[in-house]
């Protein structure tokens, strides 16, 4: 894969992930404004779409959406810190690793809550 092929360093990966997650979130926003428009325009159609969101496949997609949002938000904060405080550029790698620590710490429990109706019964803790 091009991203990892030739000496892709942290900064370049941070940039590539930011762009990929950003475009993914944009695509979801386009879909989401349309489905919320249907709450007024065609509530029955909205309720049908909602069943997809609440399905196991929909929940996995929501975990991926949440991951894209969280990464984009944390890396965006890192960009802002470097923009406002250029001396921090020296520490851009450390900031990126710190953002991954927060990503895992927030993301794992978050993914668990979203997936609980799917994985809960299998783990014997209920939906």
């Amino acid at each position: 894969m091009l991203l990892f092929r030739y000496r892709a360093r942290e900064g370049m990966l941070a940039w590539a992930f930011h762009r990929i997650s950003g475009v993914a979130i944009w695509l979801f926003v386009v879909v989401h404004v349309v489905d919320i428009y249907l709450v007024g325009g065609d509530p029955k159609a909205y309720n049908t779409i909602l069943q997809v969101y609440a399905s196991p496949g929909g929940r996995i997609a929501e975990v991926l959406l949440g991951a894209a949002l969280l990464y984009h938000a944390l890396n965006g904060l890192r960009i802002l810190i470097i923009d406002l405080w250029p001396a921090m550029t020296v520490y851009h790698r450390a900031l990126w690793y710190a953002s991954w620590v927060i990503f895992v710490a927030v993301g794992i429990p978050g993914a668990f809550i979203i997936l609980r109706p799917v994985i809960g019964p299998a783990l014997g803790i209920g939906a």
Partner: protein
Amino acid sequence: MVTIDPRTAGRARPQGSGFELFVWYVMRITGVMLFVLALAHFSILHFLFDPSQESATWIATQRWNSLIWRVFDWTLLMTVLFHSFMGVRTVVIDYVHGERPRLLLMSALYIVGLVLFVAGTSVVLTLPDKVL
């Protein structure tokens, strides 16, 4: 003077003044707003509540039963539309160099953005407190 490698951080601050510098600043301001608004919105609708309960009736009677949440979601809509469409505009500028393809894509982008602005605003303003 520390020079910033555009690959290590965000887009380099545009030189001079004008539209590009304006967009650069507003991307950062809306970015900070979205850090709060978008993450709160996602947390409320996926952690506090669950999609399985968020029917059209629930949105009309519970979620949007107060002006505060309608204002919150409309502010989120305006912020996310600006931030995401200006972000995709940057992607188009980076990868599409032909004059005609770029004009076509930009026009399509702004038209879709405008349609979402109108659709989203109208549903926030007009959704009755009871549907179905």
